[in-house]
């Protein structure tokens, strides 16, 4: 733990008596008070998340756009100033190096790419070594803190804290401004399914912003990684290392909407499309239990005869629904809604059913 990296909010977490864990090499709060309260505060009020461990990689210069077009799957050319988009970073064999968010700060000139903490160094090396059109690529991760403000009251809180109306922004936009003299970028994105934003803040100002948010009369609740994982699972949002990895075909993962093969050429385009054109063998689905048990990552999915159909990628007890939910790759023949599948829970075939996702609709 002592060797783990610390975010600019490390001391704030200690002040709040958070339970700290190592996550992707970072010393992070898994829980402040109570998982259920933190989760419910996000769904019903407003939660604050320290996501400063996320990586920020900056693409600049006249070849920033063509380079991002080559490296990622979505159509980055669609982005105008202040717009953001989810995308994927394929490797050279049709799997995924990472998933990411691309923020267009100035079209054709300046893009911020937000990547997973666990993959940041790998992503940065990959981007530099596949910098096809010589964009200026810099790892700015240490320059930025990041706070996610999520929940039905999030935008009201943001309007009170920032010097422009965040509530007037559309979803998936980004706006640069200042907070108490520190540079900020407010992005209307998130990983919870709730309204709100993610604020990049110049690292030295992160504590001040956190304190200003926490002390606001709306009383936002700090939320740890434990509740964050349940919130994203309820939305069936992919998490690298769970739903996606370096062997994942993004169409199997249900991420085809973030791939724009007719718009452009990109890394591993043919390999990725070939899997789709052959017909998908497996698909990522959501399921609920028909018999007692909680699915967990790695639990095998089987048919009634005990034959292997796939594997659980994420599973938990949904706090919103108060019942177990799971995400799994299964044989495509068992992927339609209503299909009966069995989860091997400690050797017991436990009945489950494929359901529509997201599990929680807002």
């Amino acid at each position, binding site marked *: 733990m002592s060797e783990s990296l610390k975010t600019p909010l490390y001391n704030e977490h200690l002040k709040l008596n958070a339970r700290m864990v190592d996550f992707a090499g970072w010393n992070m709060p*898994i*829980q402040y008070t*109570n*998982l*259920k309260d933190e989760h419910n505060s996000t769904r019903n009020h407003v939660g604050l998340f320290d996501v400063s461990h996320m990586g920020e990689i900056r693409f600049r210069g006249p070849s920033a756009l063509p380079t991002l077009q080559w490296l990622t799957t979505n159509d980055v050319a669609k982005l105008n100033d202040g717009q953001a988009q989810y995308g994927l970073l394929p490797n050279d064999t049709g799997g995924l190096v990472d998933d990411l968010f691309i923020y267009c700060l100035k079209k054709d000139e300046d893009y911020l790419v937000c990547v997973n903490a666990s993959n940041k160094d790998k992503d940065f090396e990959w981007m530099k070594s596949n910098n096809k059109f010589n964009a200026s690529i810099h790892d700015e991760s240490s320059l930025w803190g990041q706070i996610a403000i999520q929940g039905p009251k999030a935008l009201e809180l943001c309007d009170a804290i920032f010097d422009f109306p965040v509530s007037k922004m559309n979803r998936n936009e980004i706006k640069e401004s200042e907070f108490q003299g520190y540079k900020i970028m407010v992005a209307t994105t998130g990983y919870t399914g709730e309204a709100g934003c993610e604020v990049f803040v110049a690292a030295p100002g992160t504590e001040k912003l956190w304190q200003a948010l926490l002390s606001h009369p709306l009383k936002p609740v700090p939320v740890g990684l*434990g509740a964050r*994982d*349940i919130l994203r699972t309820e939305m069936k949002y992919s998490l690298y290392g769970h739903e996606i990895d370096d062997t994942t075909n993004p169409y199997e993962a249900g991420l085809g909407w973030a791939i724009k093969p007719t718009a452009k050429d990109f890394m591993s385009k043919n390999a990725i499309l070939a899997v789709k054109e052959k017909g998908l063998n497996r698909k990522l689905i959501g399921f609920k239990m028909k018999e*007692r*048990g*909680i699915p*967990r990552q790695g639990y095998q999915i089987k048919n009634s005869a005990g034959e292997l159909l796939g594997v659980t990628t994420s599973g*938990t*007890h949904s*706090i919103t629904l108060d019942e*177990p939910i799971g995400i799994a790759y299964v044989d495509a023949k068992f992927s339609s809604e209503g299909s009966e599948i069995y989860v091997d829970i*400690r050797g017991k075939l436990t009945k489950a059913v494929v359901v529509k996702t997201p599990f929680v609709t807002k």
Partner: protein
Amino acid sequence: MAFHIPEDFYYTKDHEWAQVDENIVTVGITEFAQDQLGEVVYVDLPEEGQKVTQNQAFGVVESVKAVSDLYAPVSGTVIEVNSSLIDDPSSINDDPNNNGWLVRIEMDTEKELANLMRSPEYKKLIV
């Protein structure tokens, strides 16, 4: 946080408690264990009549975030299961030393109690 660690219980290093009444051993998880786990949402307990072995897993308790094996403090036969926990395991969090008990075991030999901790030793383990 101060946990209530009854002095008349025995303890395992895996945070189960054992209350011994002649050859009948009532088993639960400690206040410390439930605090570490967080809200318990699921338990998997053995059937009555099932044999258990000291230090071997006999069941599972799951919180929202984690799966945790339950280890038998003594070897013996399960004679009673707290079946109220199946539908509502909340007493494991609310009252782990009493109503949150898991199983009663008829122990094979009281010699195994020598392998367990008493409360002063267990308290040292969790500080």
